[in-house]
């Protein structure tokens, strides 16, 4: 017993020291409001732009200080969920609209109706507000968005002498298929589809063909119907990778970045990517490499495509919602929205910001992307309860197997509809 006493004392002393050190952790109340703003900006330019705007706010508002906290896209959902459950969430939260449903329905986010200024409310189009509307409430301000575009090797397009599409005269899906056939040969594929996340890419692009996939019954319940319009994009991709051989099969499981080495090496004439990938292309493209931004193909519904914009929300538990809303209003003034958009190589959602000349230059394809802004719609199903489970357990493996040629269209439809509706039914009892 005597032998254990010194060790035990040492351990207890250490633990006691730790607990003592912790007990004085709170800040003294100096009467000022402090808002914690968790930002997911990560690229050098966007972090700089966000930090500058926070500094400008703090300089102009000494009584409402904003503390910049760097978050991470990689783990934001789990981290926020834990923070909400523990009552320690940041006041202002940066996220994406397709990640908000659980938090909005769970009561963790403040309904922003009545909190936001009329200017900001009117500046963002109604169709964009719908991306952050869940039930009757609005739980985030959508502020940055990106269309999926075709990044093309200019030299290969020129050599194949194909018509170059514009936003005014885009390719149809059928024409796109013909063009990729023409661009293929001699070790070159007309297109490389990076379909590591096949569901969002397929569903978002399917809006152009009039695809909806998720329909509402008379009782308001969501049901999946994989109709002819929903099949246009999957069938085109399947034909390109299969019968045509005009799309690389090796990139079907890749992320967007993984396709760039092959694109730079001239193996792929085009790569469908998010608009913000241009930054990587500017950084990594070999000297003299010519590239351009083309609109994604159009279908029966024109150039429409689904997007899940980045959002800014306010925590329901925040005791300073009005101050947080005032900060959002400052952060999303048109000029500031442009700074954030340029930093992230994305498009602002505000109509005023979209008029900024910096977004209409031909350099790096800005003008093409900005011209697509009016065609962007809420991503299908992001507000449908059960969508994440349907996507992970049913749709992702089904689309992957379909694109790889392992199953046919009938089996794809059966899985999406029959298996998928069983999943949705559990969430809609």
């Amino acid at each position, binding site marked *: 017993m005597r032998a254990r006493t010194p060790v035990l004392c040492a351990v207890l002393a250490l633990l006691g020291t730790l607990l003592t050190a912790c007990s004085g952790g709170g800040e003294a109340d100096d009467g000022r409001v402090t808002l914690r703003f968790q930002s997911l900006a990560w*690229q050098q330019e966007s972090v700089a732009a966000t930090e500058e705007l926070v500094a400008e706010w703090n300089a102009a508002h000494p009584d409402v200080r904003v503390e*910049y906290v760097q978050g991470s896209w*990689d783990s934001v959902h789990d981290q926020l969920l834990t923070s909400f459950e523990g009552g320690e969430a940041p006041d202002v939260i940066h996220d994406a609209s397709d990640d908000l449903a659980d938090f909005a329905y769970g009561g963790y986010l403040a309904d922003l109706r009545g909190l936001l200024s009329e200017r900001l409310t009117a500046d963002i189009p109604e169709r964009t507000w719908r991306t952050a509307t869940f039930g009757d409430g609005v739980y985030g301000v959508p502020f940055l968005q990106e269309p999926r575009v075709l990044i093309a090797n200019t030299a290969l397009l020129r050599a194949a002498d194909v018509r170059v599409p514009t936003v005014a005269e885009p390719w149809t899906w059928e024409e796109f298929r013909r063009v990729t056939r023409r661009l293929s040969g001699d070790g070159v594929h007309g297109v490389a589809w990076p379909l590591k996340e096949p569901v969002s890419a397929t569903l978002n692009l399917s809006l152009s063909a009039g695809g909806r996939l998720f329909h509402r019954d008379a009782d308001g319940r969501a049901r999946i119907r994989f109709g002819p319009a929903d099949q246009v994009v999957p069938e085109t991709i399947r034909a390109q990778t299969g019968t045509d051989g005009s799309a690389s099969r090796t990139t079907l499981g890749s992320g967007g*970045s993984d396709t760039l080495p092959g694109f730079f090496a001239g193996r792929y004439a085009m790569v469908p990517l998010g608009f913000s990938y241009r930054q990587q292309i500017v950084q990594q493209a070999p000297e003299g490499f010519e590239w351009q931004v083309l609109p994604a193909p159009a279908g029966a519904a024109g150039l429409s495509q689904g997007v899940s914009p980045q959002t800014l929300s306010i925590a329901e538990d925040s005791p300073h919602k009005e101050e947080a809303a005032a900060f959002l209003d400052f952060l999303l003034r048109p000029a500031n929205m442009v700074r954030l958009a340029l930093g992230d190589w994305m498009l602002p959602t505000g109509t005023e910001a979209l008029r900024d000349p910096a977004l209409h230059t031909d350099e790096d394809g800005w003008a093409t992307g900005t011209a697509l802004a009016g065609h962007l719609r809420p991503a299908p199903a992001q507000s449908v309860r059960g969508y994440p489970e349907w996507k992970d357990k049913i749709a992702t493996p089904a689309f992957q197997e379909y694109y790889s040629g392992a199953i046919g269209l009938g089996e794809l439809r059966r899985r999406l509809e029959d298996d998928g509706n069983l999943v949705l039914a559990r969430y809609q009892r």
Partner: protein
Amino acid sequence: MNLRPGRAARGGQYAALLAYLLFLAFPFLWLLSTAFKPPRELASLHPTWIPKDPTLANFRQAFDEQPLLHAALNSLAVAAGAAVIAVLVATPAAYVTARLRTRLSRAATGWVVVGQAFPFVLVIIPLFLVLKNLRLVDSVPGLVMVYVVWALPFALWMLAGYVRAVPAELEEAAAVDGAGRLRTLVSVTAPLLAPGVVATGLFAFISAWNEFFFALVLLKTPQKQTLPVVLTHFVGAEGVADLGPLAAAALLATLPSLVVFAIVQRRITSGLLAGAVKS
């Protein structure tokens, strides 16, 4: 005549060992190569092991963009604190459970080791609430306590094995020679346990140094964030990463573990061999 198959077998063994070493070293060597490549080489269709145009720009950018040094110091404090406390708590507990083979000690050991089976996601919310009540959220000591608790089951199990490897007859012989319990522990048992204590401390240090999720959830103040959390700031939406700076920062993050292991590994192996001979 007998030497030929022996040489062939030995050659095969060395070849297999070399292949295994390369397999183990591959991620580190790839990280090393990536950290010194400029963006254009990173996007090359035919990557090379040796950078054609090596650059330190990735390291400069990593340090410019993120407070890596500060985060490394935080990680060092947290990992060292967790390792020291885990060893201090686990050593006497392991001694008792190894030497007193009662039903209670066996049950206690089993219960503690079962604690290792719970995944992070299962405990994080209750843990967060407990720490919040103790006002230990967003505090480095709070994180150290979590790491200690997390490391203890394995540390206890590991150290108990080392204690069992020390023959009880040595302690009995010391007692016959007139040494008291304390003297026996200090002069006979402790030196033989040293390699085990070092190995256990190393395990606790490395697991705390590399841990990400608890640090992400529990630390909110940017100045308190540890290195694994800061590393994720180089990763954007949909897994897009700033690969060069990320590799440079990750390379720097792996160095302390390698250095610590390089320093203590000789002691661990020699201690293990000594124990083996004695038993």
